């Protein structure tokens, strides 16, 4: 399964109707040591590009935006207790939540790995 990225540095991995999301390696790197993660509620309805979670690092508090619209079906409690998981394993253990997609067409607005790498280089 390949990763798709937003301009705000979230990643999303789609499996059927379920999308798993988190923040990119670039995001965790520029935030520095993450000290707090605020997760959405299970069942919450989210809209693409609207705020879904918050991460705090020693430098700043940042909003995390939903890469797709839908309903939150699962959250990763583990990152709440050990926020450093987002630094150590942003794409695997550091996932934030799973969303049941409501509009698959939104995926076409996201970047693939190569496009995202290019985008980050230009920043």
């Amino acid at each position: 399964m390949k990763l798709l990225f937003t301009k705000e540095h979230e990643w999303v991995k789609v499996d059927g109707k379920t999308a798993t999301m988190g923040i990119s390696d670039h995001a965790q790197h520029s935030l520095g040591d993450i000290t707090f993660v605020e997760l959405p509620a299970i069942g919450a309805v989210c809209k693409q590009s609207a705020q879904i979670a918050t991460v705090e690092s020693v430098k700043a508090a940042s909003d995390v935006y939903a890469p797709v619209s839908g309903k939150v079906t699962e959250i990763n409690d583990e990152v709440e207790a050990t926020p450093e998981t987002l630094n150590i394993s942003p794409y695997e253990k550091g996932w934030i939540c799973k969303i049941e997609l409501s509009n698959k067409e939104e995926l076409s607005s996201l970047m693939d790995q190569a496009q995202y790498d290019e985008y980050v280089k230009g920043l």
Partner: protein
Amino acid sequence: MQLIFERSVKGRRAVKFCDDEKFPENIFPQKYSRAKDADLPEVSELDVIRHYTNLSRRNFSVDTNFYPLGSCTMKYNPKFTEKIASLEGFTQLHPLMPQIFGGGILSQGGLEVIYKSEQLLSEITGMKAFTMQPLAGAHGELTGAMVIAQYHKNNGDRRKYVIVPDSSHGTNPASAVIAGYEVIVIKTDKDGGMDIDEFKSQLNTDVAAVMLTCPNTLGLFNSNIKIICDMAHEVGALMYYDGANLNAILGKVRPGDIGFDIVHLNLHKTFATPHGGGGPGAGPVGVTEKLKKFLPIPRVIQRKDGTYALRYKYPESIGYMAPFLGNFGVILKSYAYIMMLGKQGLIEVSENAVLSTNYIRAKLKKYFYIPYDKICMHEFVISAKTLVERGVRAIDIAKFLIDKGIHPPTIYFPLIVPEAIMIEPTETESKETLDNFIDIMKEISRLAQEDPDKIINTPKTTPVNRLDETKAARDLCIRWHAA
């Protein structure tokens, strides 16, 4: 250094009231007494004096060291204002006095200070009326946001959004949300101003207000500011001026003349009262004619005979924002400061603040990466991005400066500049102090190339060396427990 708790010796006292066994029992109802002892340190008077005197000598303040803390305007606070604030006629004035029957005539001096402060700030900012109630900058923002909400509600207009630029102070969006609005964030364009095209695309009749600071946190004056004000007014939105950066334009530009409807000021920044843990602050709010009736009550009015009184009858007011008309001591110090400097003095404040900043910027541009490198106002932002490959980050530079006797500048803010270091010298520093700072920054630039370890492992001269900030945030422990 030991904690005061660690100096505790059982039974030691500064003052002995009576022998323990003779202490009358049951003078308080049982339900009010503690289940167990309060765990207070048992120390002598001399223990207390030595402990706190030694602690105070480790203090790092604007009275001891240069403090170029961007976004915070840490200017020196002249001591004469402390003297004015300690005059007996003010310190002995009971805060309830003007509210009790017959008390108004006994508190004329206090009321006059508030009334005249409102008038002076109105003149300085081009507003029609001020409230001195808000107790801090963010409290002023909340007051302003509530006035915005009240204005639209009064017009039968339900608006949903407040627009802020991504360079704004974090308190701007927070205040808008507390007042019930959703926030729309506009990106910064390549010149450091709010992106006008994106602003245009987000602006509509659902927007209640636009909150801006000008100059912004990059220290840049937005040359489109008049256009932005006009565009917002066209759709019925109000313009909110965050006065945190007023030090840059004092006596030069009045927000009211540009078209702003609401202004909050930070007396503890621009008008020289202590802050940064030393507070308290004050965040008075000014408004245009049409918003006057929404200001908090009570208002100080002047009667025809020249005396002052409190007036409560403003049915459209947002109500009380603070008890006792605000932080009176702070208002008083700022009033004294404004009266002492006068019009010409205030103009020189902003001129010297801007000159000092541009002096440092011009001297350092060869040595550091300055992302928005042009004539700036009261502050400017360096990025340590180019030094990261040498292992030197903004935080390392900040820590190195402590060893050199300089308070670290604001770092990692504004968020739009990676590895940001935000420098604001203020008008109160001499050329010698600025030159010393410039020399130290040049040394940092050289060390970053030749011997970065010398920067990274600092500070070394302080009572406490480099702290583990991550551990402090993840594993916060601020309470002492007996071993």
